[in-house]
């Protein structure tokens, strides 16, 4: 726990410098998953292994970054009435691109992530940041915001994926983590395990918050 407190302190000191603030807040203080509880579906669905979780997190972060950049660039050109429609268009475009890119990297990975790549479109984190931040801020700030939120999201997904894979599969990034006849807790990679693991991480966050 003392380790935990130190971390909070470390992050807190970083937050004092304004330029890093936009970045750091998404990692910890406003973590989209653990604090804001946004975009839960991919968090639960594709966090059954560390690899999937990381890939999904990075894909989401990429879309977030690109759409934040574009939205922020165009923020003075897009009329208010068609704002949301154009954001959706932009996001869908980047998601389609990511979808093909991942297919081009590995068919297996694409199969594992399934439809959830496409579902990044409706992840409210992305639309939310576009609407709440990028449409009002400069490109630089929006980039930092997107990176912070994106990495915060990836970090959270990774936390879930790591726990679920280690316990549920006895491995970490596909590499065996335990002696040979370790008994896997299959429940962890089942849907119920997703709920339980997320609940556990939230519990830890709550406890840390109450302490700090």
């Amino acid at each position: 726990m003392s380790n935990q407190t130190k971390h909070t302190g470390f992050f807190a000191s970083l937050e004092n410098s304004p330029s890093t603030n936009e970045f750091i807040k998404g990692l910890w203080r406003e973590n989209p998953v653990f604090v804001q509880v946004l975009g839960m579906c991919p968090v639960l669905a594709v966090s059954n292994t560390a690899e999937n979780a990381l890939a999904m997190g990075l894909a989401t972060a990429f879309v977030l970054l690109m759409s934040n950049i574009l939205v922020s660039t165009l923020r003075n050109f897009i009329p208010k009435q068609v704002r949301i429609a154009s954001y959706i268009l932009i996001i869908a475009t980047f998601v389609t691109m990511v979808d093909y890119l991942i297919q081009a990297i590995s068919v297996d990975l694409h199969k594992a992530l399934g439809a959830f790549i496409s579902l990044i479109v409706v992840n409210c984190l992305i639309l939310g940041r576009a609407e709440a931040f990028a449409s009002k801020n400069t490109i630089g700030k929006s980039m930092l915001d997107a990176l912070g939120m994106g990495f915060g999201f990836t970090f959270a997904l990774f936390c879930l994926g790591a726990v679920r894979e280690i316990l549920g599969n006895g491995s970490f990034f596909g590499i065996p983590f335990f002696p040979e006849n370790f008994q896997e807790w299959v429940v962890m990679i089942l849907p119920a395990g997703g709920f339980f693991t997320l609940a556990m991480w939230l519990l830890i966050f709550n406890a840390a918050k109450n302490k700090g």
Partner: protein
Amino acid sequence: MTEESLWYIFINASLVNNFVLAYFLGICPFLGVSGKMETASKMGGAVTFVMIVASMCAYGIHALLVAVNAPFLQLISYIVVIASTVQLVEMFIKKMSPALFRALGIFLPLITTNCAILGLALFQTNKGYGFFESFVYALGAGAGFTLALVLMAGLREKLDFAEVPGIVKGTVLTLLVAGILSLSFMGFAGLGSQ
């Protein structure tokens, strides 16, 4: 593809592979709108309705995209067409049945860009369902979503009057209940496969 009877499609989408509890689709409304039974059942109705509309749209668009050979437009066209169709239907309902609109109205805009809706459209396309199969699939997915939401709401209303330890209160408790519900739904595994 094996022959899947319509009945099986329905059971599969609603119970065996429940959208919320097995596929993790629509988790946000599941966590957010399951506090009260009344809102939960209305939300369920609204989602089912939008699912059917979305499913029909997706069937049409898919046929069109196959015809013009432009698979890369799938996602973008699904989302745009579903969103605008729901908007149109919403306006239509507002005109035709103000009562129904009042019941579903506030939920409709929230749902349009919900991942359960888009997920349904994508899955039915992946599975290669025909028109009737898609319709039944949407009906089953909606029923399953409603069931999960309504069960959760009942439990949460009961838990409003329980001495839940402070640290567990809120989202954590909801997630734990969802986990146990998800375990319970595993009892339906393989239903219809025998």
